[in-house]
């Protein structure tokens, strides 16, 4: 991975953040900090890791399930940039009849691999996809982007059992461990630690990384074992709101709206900050 390659991924993460600010301005409400914590992960997945083609329906593609569906606003600009749908769609985000809403709809948005929004479902969907791809001997892998607060949902652990039971080495979970849900710290609201031990106990192979370090992310994804008989879980330690100083680790910006000059100042800060 050259310095230029890393710089490109950094630029894409910036793009995800600035577009998020722009789109939320249109809707007047959105999940800034949950997207910002995942920006580097999304950048590395879409611009380095995932095997994709111009046809978003290519059967052997890698899939990404946005189990934390409220990260979708950060993904739409990426999908548009990949040419899966016209960029003009973004300009009408969340307006009456738009295919693009706060949570993604696979029937409306090319490039979205599954409709999501109801937390706790995504890993099970991923188990089904990974099972199917396995049985069809497809090289496609399934990535599932999970929120950390989301792990309170019991269904995750049903899926964890199933993923290990069926030896789904082509299933890769990524926990965006930004430590916070809407009401505050996960460890105050409903603790999920010891998280890595839990996944290990469920017979998953666990990798822990700094979820904002592009080199660490690239390294962990590049070195995922192929043909493993264990599902893989990447716990990405992140900061909620990363990239915008006044949002970092703030509970208040889980939801909010930046209008006019506030959006401009924030975009300026994102452009100046060097994350990763």
């Amino acid at each position, binding site marked *: 991975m050259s310095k230029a390659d890393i710089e490109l991924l950094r630029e894409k993460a910036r793009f995800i953040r600035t577009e998020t600010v722009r789109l939320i301005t249109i809707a007047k409400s959105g999940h800034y900090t949950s997207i910002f914590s995942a920006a580097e992960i999304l950048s590395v997945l879409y611009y380095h890791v995932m095997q994709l083609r111009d046809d978003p329906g290519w059967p052997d593609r890698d899939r990404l399930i946005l189990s934390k569906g409220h990260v979708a606003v950060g993904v739409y600009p990426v999908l548009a940039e990949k040419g899966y749908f016209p960029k003009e769609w973004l300009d009408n985000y969340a307006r009456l009849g738009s295919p693009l809403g706060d949570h993604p*709809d696979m029937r409306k948005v090319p490039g979205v691999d599954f*409709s999501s929004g109801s937390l706790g479902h995504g890993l*099970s969907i991923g188990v*089904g*996809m990974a099972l*199917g791809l396995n049985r069809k001997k497809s090289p496609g892998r399934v990535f599932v982007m999970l929120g950390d607060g989301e792990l309170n949902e019991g269904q995750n652990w049903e899926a964890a*059992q199933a993923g290990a*039971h*069926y030896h789904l080495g082509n299933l890769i979970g990524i926990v965006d461990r930004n430590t916070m849900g809407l009401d505050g710290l996960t460890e105050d609201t409903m603790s999920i630690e010891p998280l890595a031990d839990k996944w290990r106990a469920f017979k998953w192979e666990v990798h822990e990384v700094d979820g904002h370090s592009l080199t660490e992310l690239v390294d962990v994804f590049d070195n995922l074992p192929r043909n493993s008989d264990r599902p893989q879980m990447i716990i990405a330690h992140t900061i909620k709101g990363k990239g915008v100083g006044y949002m970092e680790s703030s509970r208040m910006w889980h939801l909010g709206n930046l209008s006019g000059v506030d959006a401009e100042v924030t975009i300026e800060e994102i452009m100046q900050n060097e994350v990763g």
Partner: protein
Amino acid sequence: MKSAELELQDKESWHLGMLRTQAHSAIAARVLSDLADQDERIAVLTADLGYSNRTVEFSYRHPERFFNMGIAEQNMVSVAAGLATIGYIPYVATFASFLGLLSCEHIRTDCAYPNLPVRLLSHHAGISLGYYGTSHHATEDIGIMRTIANLKIVCPADAYSLEQALKQTVDVEGPIYFRMGRGREADAYEVGEPWEYGKVSVLREGGDGVIFANGILVSAARAAATALSQEGIEMTVADLHTIQPFDVEGVLSLIEGKSHVFVAEEHNTRGGVASAVADAMVDARVSGPELVRIGFPSDEYSVIAAPYYLYKHYGLDAEGVAERVRSTLR
């Protein structure tokens, strides 16, 4: 005793392995196994009930497309949705209480909303689990499923109609909720009688009223009509097996000219097929006939008894249906 197998002496004795011959719900596994010989898309999932619903038979013939998901039904429904995106037609089999009730949101959000071809084999519906009690009953599932967009609902009455239902719907777009009994229902159909997905099946015609039945109530309604005929009461009996899409035209044409419309179902009288018929009547401004709901009392939970006695207790057998018709028309 250490012998490998107890040789059963009493004819009332049984074990799970014997359901293979006793339960005709096994027909589902056989039909699906046959279909799967030709159709690579078909897969079967169950939640540690393979010996009960006999999906284990599918696992013998198509082990690579059989997935036992353990006692985790919500996960199972979501996994099926994931499989469907890869090109499979997954048939998900477990008790109705754990599909239509426990996994309701998963059916709606993961199967129906993306309109994926997941088939829910929701067996032991209604009160057919008898003295297992309310936790294992499902008398509300049609009411819930009926309001979910994209979801089709089919309620076969016996082994023959279940076979028809499965064979005719393989290529139906989107998800289907098959509401099934426990697999020991009396035959409601002669083999070869017409049964068409999406169309109400007229089993008997008479001018004194119409009984719409489904599931276990079809054979009951048929037997009731035969008994009533001997008393000079001639009833039309129709199997309203496809609840979604609802055969509005077929139902209304059978109601036309009748003074009484009976709906017999193993479901709460509120929200089920009776309500679906009522909707059709109101929407078409059919106000003449009296609508009589023969079903499970909406504001109660079941008493304890074996299924036979429960059906009798709640008037959901041939005698109960006949008596309700008789007393209404009298």
